[in-house]
């Protein structure tokens, strides 16, 4: 569409009075103007603080008190109690820890694998690239959840064996070791299959950047391939990678919830939001708050992350050359 024409040369020279600004800084300034995204960022930070920092101060979520089932909210139990008399508020916070940890760690693993795979594939080009992408295409066509479920089933017993090993050999506390090995298969399963789309995105970026003249100039200056890939190409792919990573976290949290709902995810004594929602669904008609409250926290976090990702995408979408 017709926009203001390219600013003429003298005008451009005049404009250069303010401080130098990198592309990242420009993008951040653009994002600050996006109220929805900033609010979402705030909500997400609050959620993290709640679940990780405040949780220590709360009651133990596992204490069962059968005399106090389904209690209404009170000063002692801010959200009341659940079917086994456990404090709902702290259950939600502790559950949040697991859900978000799974989301963040699995995303981190996916990003590491995906960026590496995608940039190597894109940079290598030719047959190597074609082969690597064929592999990705095939793996992508396989229903993700199907494979994750099968993988989970396979790894089910692994966790108790490994936990025992941790306790014996590394002298870790059994409780901690149990909780950890309980969720590792999930990280594994999500991380192993979650990097595929990111690899594609990174590869597409690398392919288009590879052809740009500043990369040719780098070749003409004699720089080594690794220097070109790491110092010139990859830093320019960060935009879409960051956006996609931000959007992957909520989808992984969703997967975790789905798996937990099916009984294939996190197991007690761990509680995740998925498990809380599942338990709550059982008492839906009589005590809907057991479903609605965890559901609300869960959905709110996902909302925040998704809006944040959208905001990032809008902020970074403007073409690199501002003319």
């Amino acid at each position: 569409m017709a926009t203001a024409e390219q600013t003429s040369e003298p005008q451009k020279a005049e404009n250069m009075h303010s401080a130098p600004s990198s592309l990242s800084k420009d993008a951040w300034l653009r994002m600050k103007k996006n109220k929805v995204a900033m609010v979402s960022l705030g909500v997400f930070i609050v959620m993290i603080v709640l679940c990780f920092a405040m949780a220590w101060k709360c009651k133990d979520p596992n204490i069962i008190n059968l005399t106090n089932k389904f209690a209404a909210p009170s000063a002692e139990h801010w959200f009341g109690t659940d079917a086994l008399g456990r404090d709902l508020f702290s259950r939600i916070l502790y559950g949040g820890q697991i859900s978000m940890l799974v989301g963040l760690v699995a995303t981190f693993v996916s990003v590491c694998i995906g960026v590496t795979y995608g940039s190597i594939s894109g940079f290598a080009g030719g047959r190597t690239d074609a082969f690597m992408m064929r592999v990705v295409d095939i793996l992508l066509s396989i229903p993700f959840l199907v494979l994750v479920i099968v993988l989970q089933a396979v790894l089910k017993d692994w966790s108790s064996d490994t936990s025992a090993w941790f306790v014996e050999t590394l002298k870790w506390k059994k409780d901690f070791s149990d909780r950890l090995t309980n969720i590792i298969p999930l990280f594994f399963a999500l991380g192993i299959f979650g990097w595929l789309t990111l690899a594609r995105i990174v590869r597409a970026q690398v392919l288009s950047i590879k052809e740009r003249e500043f990369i040719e100039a780098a070749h003409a200056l004699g720089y080594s391939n690794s220097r070109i890939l790491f110092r010139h190409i990859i830093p320019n792919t960060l935009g879409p990678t960051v956006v996609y990573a931000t959007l992957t976290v909520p989808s992984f949290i969703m997967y975790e919830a789905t798996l937990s709902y099916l009984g294939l995810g996190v197991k007690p004594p761990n509680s995740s939001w998925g498990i809380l929602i599942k338990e709550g669904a059982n008492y839906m008609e009589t005590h809907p708050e057991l479903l609605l409250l965890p559901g609300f926290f869960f959905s709110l976090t996902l909302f925040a992350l998704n809006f944040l990702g959208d905001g990032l995408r809008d902020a970074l979408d403007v073409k690199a050359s501002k003319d």
Partner: protein
Amino acid sequence: MIRFIFNRFLQGLLVLFALYTITFFLAKAMPGEPFTSEKNVSEFTKQNLRKLYGLDKSLPEQYFRYPYRVLTQGDFGVSSSKGKPVRDIIANSFPVSLVLGLGALGFAVGIGIPLGILAAIRKNTWVDWGLMGFAMIGICVPAFTIGPLLQILVAANVPWLKVAGWGSPQDFLLPAFTLGLVSAAYLARLTRGGILEILSQDFIRTAHAKGLSPTTVILKHSLRGGLLPSVAYLGPAFAALISGSFIVESIFLVPGMGQHFVNAAVSRDEFLLLGVSMFFGFLIIVMNLFSDILTGVLDPRVRMGKEGA
């Protein structure tokens, strides 16, 4: 165009093959043995079954035996957890899942795409924000929260709709709707994005310069290109629907394939697992092929094999 379809078909076969290999080895890696959790099966029968399905043979032999039996005799093995031939189990539950899946797809396309178009046309107005807000709800609130909530609502206000079960024709409505909601949300966003992307292109300016009415510009000039991202998503969307069906089936008590799949994973039922996975995979490949063909229909550059399409 024929060549294009043929290529995609071959690719599909490759995917099926890969799926089989991965599932086969994962199934074998599962701890525990088939036929051990069913107490009803006698030891003698177990031995016979093992022999029949070559479970006593080496891995590579088993690997080739299975597809051979499937292709020549239509024999998918016997479910160790249910004691019935896998083929029968699939034959009974697949039509249910298919109806559910297609119904969900129908809702997804019927709701998602028109809403996405509307949001694009009314960009940055309350209509747009409202619709995209709803779409976000569909993405962020899981089916297993929406499902039960819908059940409560419907039970209280809509007497002629059963809340669970699968007997009368209208029973597919609620589960299909719940299932389709997530895909509808994604489709709405993709459609909106795709159309906005097209609207910023130069040839839309040309259309305006020709004095065409805004309706023509939207419907005739921007839909084809604008729907491309949504169409490309249809294939994976169907995959998502099939995967999500497990949950919806359990909430609404629908006797589809999903429950069998989960049970097979939980009870180490090799043949059932293999059978159901391969079936899912096959369905998804068909849907991906369909989505690719649709892309070819919409975008002439793709079907003519032009680079840079």
